[in-house]
């Protein structure tokens, strides 16, 4: 049941005349649920802004939240929920900030309200519900954007390629290896091989919590691609449990060298390049 024009006008008047009392009661209702995580003046400022937007939207004859007249209000609500989402408030707490207006208004109407006023109130209530749902929607959207950003940052952060020795680079893999990450790792490793001209690469999987057939497939692809380019790959950091899983799953690493630790892998590569690791103060015998 949308608001009729004169009902909207009446509520706009009410919001304007009783502004101070309404904002105080409204902020009080919201403050209870926020449990002191937001300062009182800050909350009152936000509430007052909201009250003004509601009042303007109603006064200009908005019958529904999707009307052009309610554009200002929508922007205000969107900003409120995106701020709340970034500050770590829950979606519930954000929606309550709007719902509380209903209780504050019915308290103002009090016992004097007749049937006509109550009918108006029901329409007004539907309007506020729409507004609260809108905040919920924008809250979720902001949260999803945040999660997507973080996933991207994680992707960038977690795949360094480090140089261990002249002609030897290593990729310490940390965390679960899904297709997207495997792709990034593969591209970055191959690119580094070309840039540095390193004929040896060590893929260290100490930080990978579990190896299933898919993860193994990704690693194998990387090794084969590196071979095609003329570089040799070694897999290191295989923990005992992972070794058992690999055998149990029947994954074949073929003729790819596997070592239990990064140190072993480095020693192996140096040995292949005719280096020999000798303690500095040990006398040659």
């Amino acid at each position, binding site marked *: 049941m949308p608001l009729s024009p004169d009902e909207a006008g009446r509520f706009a008047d009410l919001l304007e005349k009783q502004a101070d009392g309404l904002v105080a009661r409204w902020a009080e209702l919201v403050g209870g649920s926020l449990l002191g995580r937001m300062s009182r003046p800050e909350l009152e400022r936000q509430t007052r802004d909201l009250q003004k937007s509601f009042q303007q939207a109603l006064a200009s004859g908005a019958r529904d939240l999707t009307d052009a007249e309610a554009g200002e209000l929508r922007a205000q609500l969107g900003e409120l929920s995106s701020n709340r989402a970034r500050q770590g408030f829950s979606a519930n707490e954000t929606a309550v900030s709007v719902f509380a207006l209903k209780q504050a208004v019915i308290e103002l109407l009090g016992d004097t309200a007749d049937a006509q006023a109550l009918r108006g109130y029901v329409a007004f209530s539907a309007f506020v519900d729409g507004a609260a749902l809108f905040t919920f929607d924008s809250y979720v959207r902001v949260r999803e954007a945040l999660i997507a950003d973080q996933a991207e940052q994680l992707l960038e952060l977690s795949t360094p390629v480090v140089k261990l020795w002249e002609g030897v680079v290593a990729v310490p893999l940390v965390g679960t290896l899904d297709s997207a990450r495997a792709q990034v790792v*593969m*591209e970055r490793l*191959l*690119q580094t*091989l*070309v840039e540095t*001209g*390193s*004929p040896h690469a060590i893929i260290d999987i100490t930080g990978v919590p579990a190896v299933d057939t898919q993860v193994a497939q990704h690693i194998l*692809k990387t090794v*084969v*691609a*590196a*071979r*095609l*380019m*003329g*570089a040799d790959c070694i897999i290191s950091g295989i923990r005992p449990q992972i070794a058992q899983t690999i055998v149990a799953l029947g994954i074949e690493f073929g003729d790819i060298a596997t070592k239990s630790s990064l140190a072993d892998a480095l020693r192996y590569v140096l040995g292949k390049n005719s280096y020999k690791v000798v303690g500095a103060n040990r006398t040659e015998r």
Partner: protein
Amino acid sequence: MERVPVLKIGDILLVSIQIDMEDQVALQLQEDLAERIVATGCHGVIIDISTLDIVDSFVGRTLATIASVSRVLDAETVVVGMRPAVAITLVELGLSLPGIRTALNVELGIEMLARSRAETEVELDDEDDADQAAVTTS
């Protein structure tokens, strides 16, 4: 039709492919290279594909054929400078270019040829010793 130049540097023939590898170009290169190996008596071939964006199955097979032909003519072939994107595509297609030796760049390719040449020469020396030993005992 465009042709890929074959350069002789010391004991090595260097082929740097800088045009699109159409099928006809690939076949022509295969013929030219066989002739040049015989004409120059080189023992190493380096094929640089660092400017190639696309390596399809035909080019892959031609490279493998070139490697086999050169081996018959006693020349080792090394394919160098494959781009990461090309390598990834080949792996995704399941083409692992069997029988082709690869190196990251021309420099490492030359080193690889020098190393394998040194190994075969050591083997030759051993054979000479064995022959002499056979002569002395008889």
